[in-house]
């Protein structure tokens, strides 16, 4: 046991033991322990194996970034064991080991490591080519992560937006101080801390540090700052849109907070940088911060005989902590020119170290405190390009971005007091700038409370610069240590890659994969750059860094995806459909009945008796104003200036490129009142299309366009008995065929419901009445129809039946029988194109398209064998060849004709009635088919609809 007696700053609760398993073995720790602290307390030294060479690895940084500390917890892969708290019953396993952590058979690759330099795979496995798939499978077994269970459910994740004045990323002393100062200056502040509690590095500091942490945390609480712990500011995006992932949430598994920060304060502190030397990845080689966290926060002693290589006060403090914990400590001080060269030891971990002066010391813990990496990630995302400072041996922010302010260790050094002072100044500055932004926002926002007074001054940044402590530049490329622990890349790999010409930092990265693993450069960036600089004989500043990109820390797909808002639309008859056996289909956002069990039967019944269909999704636009005819003439390709009140007309709309956009009927209901119908999927597009013309090209036209699709429940009553049925429910309209003719519209009272519209149109080719009932009474009318039509053999029908019937009738569907290049002349309705109008959308292209003989046209097609239904999208080829000259766009078995019927697009040369076509079936068979004279397979004269 290496659990120490109670430590003054420990965050574990010894009264609450927690049992869990490690690779199936029972382990225990205390509430508050991380998986890492509990494992190390339990004597575990090796937690993983390295990615390529399978070398045993122990904790190195003991924090979220620890490249060696990724474990499998239940069905969750890649859990940060130095960050995740233990829970009762947790099943923790080493991942990426085979067959076991102790004996990984793939470790043989370690022996071959001198051949397997970075990028070796680009130079091998090429011949014989047929073996590559096998190599591929073998390589895949080296994939480094844990495993997922395909059946893991995506549990309840949540999202929210936030509009704070100031977001503070980082809850260390400076983040807390900045938050306090900003709140004190009147700002609404959101303080976000990646770890489980506020305090930052003070949590593993001395008594004075811990007292300060507690004091600041308490002050933050009373200051009304909203605090999110175990939460990460994952990204800063356009206009300070910040994404925050909140892991510990009372209701949801995780929650994504999307905050529009008026000012973002970046206070992430610094990340300790590993030292590159031979053997630096042996278990027991640790960073000073790791040791201090183990000892001070978790009362765990990670070793008993320590050699500590230090270049800074944090290293010195680690020595004191270790000694207090009862370890023997030998200090190797870089500031006195002392150094370490090589770690000694076997697969169980470090056993000794060779010093620069040639001495050999035994140890089971080798600690390094070699300097810092500035996690400038959030600043980079804001457009900052960090600059290297030789003297301080780390990168610093360079440009000042108005609404993103850096403070704390990231911005410079100094005493805690000085840092806190800088942070307070930053908080005040942030609050003042947020005030200016807020004023501007509020002044510009129509609905906001009007703002009084002048816009506040944009305060200048008068914060004194923080000092930069000199730090020895401890970089060594010649010692062949590991640079990227996640990716198993050594300095030797890098020097070799640079010599091969991958000698800019970006090429080096991509060739060696350094900085591309789970720690994303947090530990290894500066060392990578330093190695390359040395290899090229350049300075670190000249080499520059790779780009940091979001997220700041890896965040789960669940948190990002959350629950998707996917709206669904239903008509007011939907509950009835559900209760009456409808089989539904998705049509865009709509859910609507595809059929009620027997689409062919529905079709036959509608042809013989009467059927009703819920066509509510049909787009409906209410058009009012004196200039509606102008608008209609402009949108449609045919004429609209003389439509009589009570009449309905069909029209096709084209885009400016002449391609068919939508179609539908529009009726004139009153003097200046029209109702336009569009396809279900085209409703929104047509609305915006109409608004576009009205607002940009023709602001003088007085037309109000209002979408009323859901305002009316639309019911198509179709079939030879439909008039009989409608007559039973409508008393106030003369339904006589002469009085209410095909393509007319009336206002009616249906089943006692006033203000309904009734059109005599139909897509099915039957006599039909389309009823548009105020939606709050839609179900009433539907049920009234069913009741009144019982003796007439009424049956509801769905989309599939409608498709059969419209195809029998030869009506095309925009987007199915036409495509993204189909222009109006191709659908064979020349009467719809009126080029003598002064202007309409697409006019020039349509004029030119009339002369086009090379693009396909729409025709009706019947296979020679009536029992064969070629699938939709079957291709039509020139006989005896594979040359495509057309395709079937729609096809069905017609229950009425008891034969297959189709629509298709074919080249004009074979479009004449009677032309024989060769259709390639999906199974490869070729069948013959014939082009028909009319689009309509049934009733080409239209007697039934007019009936």
């Amino acid at each position: 046991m290496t659990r120490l007696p109670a430590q003054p700053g420990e965050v574990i609760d010894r009264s609450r033991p927690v049992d869990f398993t490690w690779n199936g073995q029972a382990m225990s720790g205390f509430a508050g322990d991380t998986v890492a602290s509990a494992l190390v307390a339990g004597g575990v030294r090796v937690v993983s194996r390295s990615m390529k060479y399978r070398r045993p690895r122990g904790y190195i940084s003991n924090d979220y970034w620890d490249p060696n500390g990724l474990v499998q917890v239940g069905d969750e892969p890649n859990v940060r064991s130095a960050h995740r708290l233990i829970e009762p019953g947790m099943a923790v396993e080493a991942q990426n080991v085979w067959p076991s952590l102790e004996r990984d058979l793939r470790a043989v690759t370690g022996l071959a490591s001198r051949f397997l330099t970075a990028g070796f795979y680009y130079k091998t496995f090429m011949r014989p080519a047929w073996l590559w798939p096998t190599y591929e499978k073998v390589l895949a077994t080296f994939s480094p992560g844990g495993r997922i269970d395909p059946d893991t459910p995506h549990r309840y994740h949540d999202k929210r937006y936030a509009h704070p004045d100031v977001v503070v990323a980082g809850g260390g002393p400076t983040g807390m101080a900045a938050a306090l100062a900003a709140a004190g200056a009147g700002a609404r502040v959101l303080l976000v801390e990646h770890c489980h509690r506020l305090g930052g590095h003070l949590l593993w500091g001395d008594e004075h540090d811990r007292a300060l942490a507690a004091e600041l945390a308490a002050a933050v609480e009373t200051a009304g700052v909203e605090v999110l712990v175990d939460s990460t500011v994952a990204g800063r995006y356009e206009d300070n849109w910040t994404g925050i992932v909140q892991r510990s949430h009372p209701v949801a598994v995780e929650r994504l907070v999307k905050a529009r920060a008026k000012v973002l304060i970046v206070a992430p502190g610094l990340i300790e940088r590993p030292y590159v030397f031979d053997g630096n990845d042996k278990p027991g080689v640790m960073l000073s911060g790791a040791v201090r966290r183990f000892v001070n926060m978790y009362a765990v002693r990670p070793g008993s005989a320590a050699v500590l290589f230090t270049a800074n006060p944090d290293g010195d403090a680690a020595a004191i902590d270790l000694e207090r914990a009862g370890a023997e400590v030998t200090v190797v001080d870089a500031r006195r020119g002392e150094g370490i060269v090589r770690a000694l030891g076997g697969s169980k971990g470090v056993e000794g170290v060779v010093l620069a002066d040639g001495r050999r010391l035994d140890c089971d813990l080798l600690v390094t405190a070699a300097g810092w990496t500035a996690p400038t990630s959030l600043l980079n995302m804001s457009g900052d390009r960090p600059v290297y400072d030789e003297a301080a041996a780390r990168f610093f922010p360079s440009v000042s971005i108005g609404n993103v302010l850096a403070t704390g260790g990231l911005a410079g050094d100094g005493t805690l007091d000085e840092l806190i002072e800088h942070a307070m100044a930053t908080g005040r500055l942030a609050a003042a700038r947020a005030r200016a932004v807020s004023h501007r926002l509020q002044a510009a926002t129509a609905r906001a409370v009007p703002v009084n007074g002048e816009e506040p001054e944009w305060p200048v940044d008068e914060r004194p610069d923080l000092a930069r402590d000199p730090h020895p530049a401890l970089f060594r490329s010649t010692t062949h240590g590991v640079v990227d622990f996640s990716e198993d890349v050594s300095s030797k790999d890098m020097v070799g890659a640079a010599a091969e010409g991958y000698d800019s930092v970006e090429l080096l990265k991509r060739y060696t994969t350094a900085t591309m693993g789970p720690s994303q450069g947090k530990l290894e960036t500066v060392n990578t750059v330093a190695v390359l600089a040395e290899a090229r004989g350049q300075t670190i500043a000249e080499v520059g860094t790779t780009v940091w990109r979001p997220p700041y820390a890896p965040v789960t797909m669940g948190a990002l995806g959350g629950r998707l808002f996917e709206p669904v639309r239903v008509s007011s008859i939907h509950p009835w459909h559900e209760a009456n056996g409808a089989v539904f289909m998705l049509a865009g956002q709509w859910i609507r009945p595809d059929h009620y069990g027997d689409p062919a039967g529905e079709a036959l019944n509608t042809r013989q008796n009467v059927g009703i269909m819920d066509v509510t999704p049909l787009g409906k636009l209410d058009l009012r104003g004196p200039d509606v005819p102008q608008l209609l003439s402009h949108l449609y390709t045919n004429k609209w200036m003389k439509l009589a009140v009570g009449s309905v007309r069909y029209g096709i709309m084209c885009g400016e490129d002449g391609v068919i956009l939508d179609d539908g009927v529009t009726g004139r209901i009153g003097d200046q009142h029209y109702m336009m119908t569009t396809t279900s999927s085209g409703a929104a597009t047509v609305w915006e299309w109409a608004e576009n013309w009205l607002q940009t090209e023709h602001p003088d036209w007085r037309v109000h366009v209002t979408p009323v699709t859901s305002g009316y429940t639309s019911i198509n009553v179709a079939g030879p008995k439909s008039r009989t049925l409608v007559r039973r429910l409508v008393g106030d309209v003369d339904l006589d065929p002469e009085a209410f003719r095909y393509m007319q519209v009336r206002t009616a009272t249906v089943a006692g419901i006033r203000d309904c519209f009734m059109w005599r149109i139909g897509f099915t080719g039957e006599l039909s009445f389309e009823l548009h009932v105020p939606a709050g009474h839609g179900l009433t009318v539907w049920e009234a129809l069913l009741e009144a039509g019982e003796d007439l053999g009424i049956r509801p029908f769905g989309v599939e039946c409608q498709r059969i019937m419209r195809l029998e009738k030869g009506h095309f569907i925009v987007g199915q029988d036409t495509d993204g290049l189909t222009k109006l002349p191709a659908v064979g309705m020349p009467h719809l194109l009126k080029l003598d109008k002064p202007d309409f959308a697409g006019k020039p292209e349509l004029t030119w398209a009339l002369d086009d003989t090379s693009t396909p046209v729409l025709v009706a097609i019947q296979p020679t064998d009536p029992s064969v239904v070629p699938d939709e999208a079957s291709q039509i080829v020139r006989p005896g060849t594979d040359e495509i000259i057309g395709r079937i766009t729609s096809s069905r078995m017609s229950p009425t004709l008891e034969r297959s019927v189709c629509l298709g697009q074919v080249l004009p040369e074979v479009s004449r009635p009677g032309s024989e076509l060769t259709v390639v079936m999906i199974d490869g068979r070729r069948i013959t088919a014939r082009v028909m004279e009319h689009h309509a397979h049934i009733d080409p004269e239209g007697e039934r609809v007019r009936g």
Partner: protein
Amino acid sequence: MAESPAFESPVSTPYVSYGGVPIEPSGPGSPLTLQDHSSTTKFIVRAGSETNAFRQLSTPFATSRTEDGVLIAGQRPDEWFLVGREQAVRALAGRLDRTGHVSLIDGTHGRAMFRLTGAGSALVLEKLCGLDWNDHMTPDGAAVSGSVAKVTCDIVRNDLDGVPSYLISCDRSFGQYLFDVILDAGQEFGIQPL
């Protein structure tokens, strides 16, 4: 004339939570409530700034006010919602000067409408809508349109006796979806249907 049959709401009862558990409606005294107001009469007025009706309405874009029991909300630069009891709305609409290019459309059937009331109602909206619901940005009376859980809604802040309250309306076909989504978002704050 015969009375019209009862108005069919787009929201079906009983109410069910996200997890499928039925939710009992509560009384008006509950701290956070969601109420279906879809049957309320809603007229849409369209009138350009050159019309008399525009002046009569005297409710600038993005604001609202109440006249004779009718809420007048300036939902778009040339568009208003008149919301209230049918008689009152019709009366107010009847008084509008219709000369010029003025349109009056009955939106009662086309729009679902819900009232979200309670001190925490802004928190519920914050989960669903990216607009800023803080008091200074969206004070009582504000009329705004925006996407709520990916459905475009017209929202009027219409406090009840000083308690924050929002009238949220959307295309009727989305009514059930939106009602469910708001109920779900409000679970952590103890929302109850009314």
